[in-house]
């Protein structure tokens, strides 16, 4: 077992473990901080997939933006929230958590089965790319390539996304605006 594999497993364990902790913690604030760990380890995993730019973006956007936003939101909703969070009790009509567990495990099993099937029958394009060696290698300059792609091949989706992002931000600002007349 070389270092690369070890690191991969370590990052995977860290991501999965922290994610499990996120969902199992009762304290939302802690969960939010644990979510950092998860996101970091996910970014690490991206590196193993030879997507360094994506990993960096992940850290910048998620950790620098999303998570801060969440913490802000958490703090904006006042402290009664904390009390509210304490009495988590499965009400009669609500789906008890064991059912959710069951459902999640069910999905997991299904996906695993799907993966197993998929392994036996990989898509044609992957096999042909592997054969022709048309795969990303660790020494490729990904960032440059991505820049070229964005400005050429994916320019339309890129622009659409930007406008969408703008709309989403304006929408979010509008929604969270305090309305006097309420």
């Amino acid at each position, binding site marked *: 077992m070389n270092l690369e594999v070890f690191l*991969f497993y370590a990052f995977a364990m860290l991501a*999965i473990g922290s994610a*499990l902790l*996120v*969902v199992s913690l009762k304290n*939302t604030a802690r*969960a*939010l901080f644990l*979510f950092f760990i*998860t996101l970091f380890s*996910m970014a690490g*995993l*991206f590196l193993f997939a*030879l*997507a360094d*730019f*994506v990993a960096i*973006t*992940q850290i910048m*956007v*998620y950790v620098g*933006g999303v998570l801060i*936003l*969440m913490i802000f*939101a*958490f703090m*904006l*909703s006042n402290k009664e*929230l904390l009390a*509210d*969070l304490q009495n988590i009790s499965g*009400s009669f009509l609500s*789906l008890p958590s064991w059912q*959710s567990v069951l*459902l*999640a*495990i069910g*999905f*997991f099993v299904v*996906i*695993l089965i799907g*993966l197993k099937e998929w*392994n036996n029958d990989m898509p044609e*394009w*992957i096999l042909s*790319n592997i054969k022709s060696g*048309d795969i990303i290698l660790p020494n490729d300059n*990904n960032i440059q*390539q*991505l820049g070229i*792609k*964005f400005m050429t*091949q994916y320019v339309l*989706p890129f622009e659409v996304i930007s406008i*969408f*992002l703008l709309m*989403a931000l304006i929408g*979010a600002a509008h*929604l*969270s605006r305090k309305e006097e007349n309420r």
Partner: protein
Amino acid sequence: MITLTHFLVVSACIFCIGLYTVIAKRNAIMILIGIELMINAAILNFVAFSKYDKTNYGGQVFALFAIVLAAASVAVGLAIILNVYRHYKTINPDNITDLRD
């Protein structure tokens, strides 16, 4: 050797945990976190597959798109949560049952 399957299994784990969070948590912010988890699982898949597509870089490009979208969705989602909180004085979705018959 780290194969594609490794990534996919990890991604499946994260996805299922996100799924569980979305369904089981009694806190809107936690649900949002669950969603983020699921999106991250998807992004991981994109990235993993991207490795085999050097010509298009489709996976990485869309991973980037997805990250941006996830950020946008979080922003909108939090705005909604804040509004809901203002309106209902709670963010426990169990107590927001206006759609009940």
